């Protein structure tokens, strides 16, 4: 971890997301808003269809960082902006691609900033997604 360099890509992953995954997240997180599982309800409130929980996408994105670090406790800070919703049609689903790149290294503090890009259907769905990690 000591020789981490700015610009180094530390993880790339493509994740398939289905309605079933959103139902599981709804139960596990306690966020049971029907826009995340009920097509009729989602359309009634003006959405194009069921969308993933922003927090679900945020959670997916940081997995590559945890796996790179080898210790979930080394994620000291993690923040994102939710810029675009991830539509999850049924049948089918969505593919979310995650790329994690080292954006800055602080050798004195022993930390690094990892910049995350999350895309679905060709558009970025998270903005300013950054994790500060202990190396």
């Amino acid at each position, binding site marked *: 971890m000591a020789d981490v360099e700015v610009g180094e890509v530390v993880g790339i992953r493509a*994740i398939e997301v289905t309605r079933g*995954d959103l139902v*599981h*997240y709804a*139960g*596990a*997180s*306690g*966020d049971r*808003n029907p826009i995340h599982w009920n097509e009729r309800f989602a359309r009634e*409130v003006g959405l194009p269809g069921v969308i993933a929980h*922003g*927090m*679900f996408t*945020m*959670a*997916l994105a*940081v*997995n590559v960082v*945890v*796996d790179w670090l*080898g*210790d*979930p*406790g080394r*994620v*000291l*800070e*993690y*923040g*994102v*902006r*939710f810029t675009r919703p991830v539509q999850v049609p049924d049948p089918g689903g969505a593919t979310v691609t995650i790329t994690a790149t080292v954006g800055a290294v602080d050798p004195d503090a022993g930390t690094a900033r990892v910049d995350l890009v999350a895309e679905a259907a060709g558009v970025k769905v998270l903005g300013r997604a950054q*994790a500060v990690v202990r190396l």
Partner: protein
Amino acid sequence: MPIDAGYAGRAYPPTDAYLVGREHLRDFATAVGATHPAHHDVAAARDLGYDDVVAPPTFAVVIAQAAEAQLIADPAAGIDFSRVVHAEERFTHHRPIVAGDAITTVLHVDSITERAGLAMVTTRCELSDVAGEPVSTVVSTLAVRGEG
């Protein structure tokens, strides 16, 4: 009814302790595809120096959202949840959450601003353990569309 901007600056009393269960952490980790063994296997977590399985970095939102309900579900605050979009989320972990933790949360309403028919509500949850030591700070911003 518009959002009551007078709630900005408010701090709520500490919540009752939220008990973090091992099976809940495993289920949350599975739900988000977090396959690192420290989320699932007690022995793997102990090898890394933790007392029990470790929460994924975003798990604190579960505890924070329960505390945020004090504001969101308060009819006098005027937040129509059907018009809410999650705009931003930020975690600062003072230490990792592990199974067996009992977490008390103090909810702060940091700001309520309105512009162009959109209200931005920023809350901050300060999570601490039974010893009173800080665990996580969770800052969340909701965007609430105006009516019509």
